[in-house]
């Protein structure tokens, strides 16, 4: 099975990239500049960075989790974060008119007034620090000298956490600093994005780790408690922040689009998907999961969080652009449906992502205490 997967997954990876690249060649212009591709990019960026924050519980705060579960799965968690940033990069680069020149032109422009400039710089640092952290973890299994360098371990982990917090709060403020879209406003988008990232990242990580280690009952049970508690605490924080965003919007021009989300054209989606499934059902299922140690409840909560997380980002990015103001300050409504080119690009990025994630899981020595045997870091 392993050799079959090792032979097949590179092909699937190439197919995923090919589909994404093909979609770039048939790319169309849509009524809103930032559509499904930017939603997908934001979603995967939050998966990667949110998962990284969960990892920091162990790497920085040395919290081992119930039954020491984090110690057992930490390398899987770091690899999940690193692999999850790849589809975000694929999507955002292919959304550019010049994907190859994009990153160097941004980084060497030193346009420090631009939030997107900082996204590129912080993403590069995020990828570099996360890769270094993973290499350190793998190499320290065979190098006594590396293992004793606790200061290096802590420095790498601290840099990852610092860049992680900066990258997704900055991502929130890419939207928060745009005066053109009334619904995107205020400094509160930064903490809202951090809370949302932790929920999305933790749920993605929970699904990946527990399904891969399906037979390990101890990991499954401990992960149920760990992720269940994360869902309860961070969902409450998320609702608290979201509530204040909506209340603050009510007093200002942002209400023009937030009102459509809360009680207008998009209300059903908001209350059904984001609140009923993404908050209430998640809280009930997570409470059940931690009290009864129900893995199934935690797994369903994780899936719901991913769905609601995607829906909330779609709503935040797309719906607010659809209800804007004309230059005269009067409301303007637009209509947008994701195009075939956008859906194809998403599909390509997701195929490449799943193949990459599984390939790395098979090739890298991610088990606790597992030593690399080939090419310095591979199992």
């Amino acid at each position, binding site marked *: 099975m392993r050799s079959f997967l090792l032979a097949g997954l590179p092909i699937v990876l190439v197919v995923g990239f090919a589909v994404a690249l093909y979609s770039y060649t048939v*790319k*169309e*212009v*849509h*009524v809103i*500049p*930032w559509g499904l591709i930017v939603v997908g990019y934001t979603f995967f960026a939050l998966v990667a960075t949110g998962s990284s924050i969960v990892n920091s519980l162990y790497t920085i705060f040395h919290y081992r989790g119930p039954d020491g579960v984090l110690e057992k799965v930490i390398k899987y968690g770091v690899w999940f974060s690193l692999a999850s940033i790849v589809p975000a990069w694929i999507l955002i680069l292919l*959304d*550019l*008119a*010049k994907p190859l*020149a*994009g990153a160097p*032109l*941004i980084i060497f*422009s030193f*346009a420090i*007034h*631009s*939030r*997107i*400039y900082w*996204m*590129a710089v912080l993403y590069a640092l995020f990828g570099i620090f996360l890769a270094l952290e993973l290499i350190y973890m793998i190499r320290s299994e065979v190098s006594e000298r590396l293992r004793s360098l606790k200061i290096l371990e802590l420095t790498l982990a601290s840099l990852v956490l610092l860049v992680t917090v900066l990258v997704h709060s900055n991502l929130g403020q890419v939207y928060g600093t*745009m*005066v*053109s*879209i009334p619904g995107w406003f205020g400094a509160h988008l930064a903490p809202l994005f951090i809370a949302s990232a932790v929920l999305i990242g933790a749920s993605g990580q929970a699904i990946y780790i527990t399904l891969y280690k399906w037979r390990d009952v101890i990991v499954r049970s401990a992960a149920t408690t760990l992720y269940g508690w994360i869902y309860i605490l961070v969902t409450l924080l998320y609702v608290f922040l979201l509530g204040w965003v909506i209340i603050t919007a009510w007093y200002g021009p942002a209400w023009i689009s937030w009102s459509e989300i809360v009680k207008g054209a998009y209300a059903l989606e908001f209350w059904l998907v984001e609140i009923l499934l993404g908050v209430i059902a998640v809280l009930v299922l997570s409470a059940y999961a931690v009290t009864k140690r129900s893995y199934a409840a935690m797994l369903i909560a994780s899936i719901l969080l991913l769905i609601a997380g995607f829906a909330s980002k779609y709503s935040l990015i797309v719906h607010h*652009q659809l209800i*804007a*103001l*004309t*230059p*005269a*300050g*009067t409301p303007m409504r637009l209509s947008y449906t994701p195009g075939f080119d956008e859906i194809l690009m998403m599909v390509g990025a997701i195929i490449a992502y799943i193949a990459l994630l599984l390939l790395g899981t098979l090739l890298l020595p991610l088990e606790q205490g597992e030593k690399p045997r080939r090419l310095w870091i591979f199992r």
Partner: protein
Amino acid sequence: MARLAHLWDMSRCVACMACVIACNAANFPEYMRSSNPNPQWSWLASNIRVWWISVGGRPRVLLTQCMQCDNAPCVKACPTKASHYDPKTGLVTIDYRLCIGCKACVVACPYGARWIDPESHMPNKCLGPECSRRIENGLKPVCVTVCPANARDFGDLDDPESSISRRVRESTTIRLREELGTKPRNIVVLRGG
């Protein structure tokens, strides 16, 4: 440096769209035969955008283009400094060698003054390539030249003798969405002098 700006007199404008067509023909002739040259606006390949708005229940037409903001959100949002103030003219300009087509400027503009080229996927805005050449040669943009109602002007706001400064002095004018702090230079005349 001159503070160049456009003026549009809505009390004189007869909404004949000659300016829109002229912009299209002069700056984007390659799109004259295209069936869908500007999908984002569902409109012509023109840097002048037409808004049908309701004022007191009555329909009004509003023609806008790049406002040449002194505090331009597009310049701040641009991650490569492709959107910048031209050092010679002070106008907000795109350096297409640096532009990567991220569309941040298109999202950032509160006036919806930028549109994505369906072929190159790069942003377009006023002034277009032909009008930029005209300005360099001391001429006015094509939209000003072709207007049959003399509803448009372009010139230096810092020169008290310029026709645009004179019209501003003699008219009731506004600048659009000033509350955003963008400091738009372009002027809308509500009532001519």
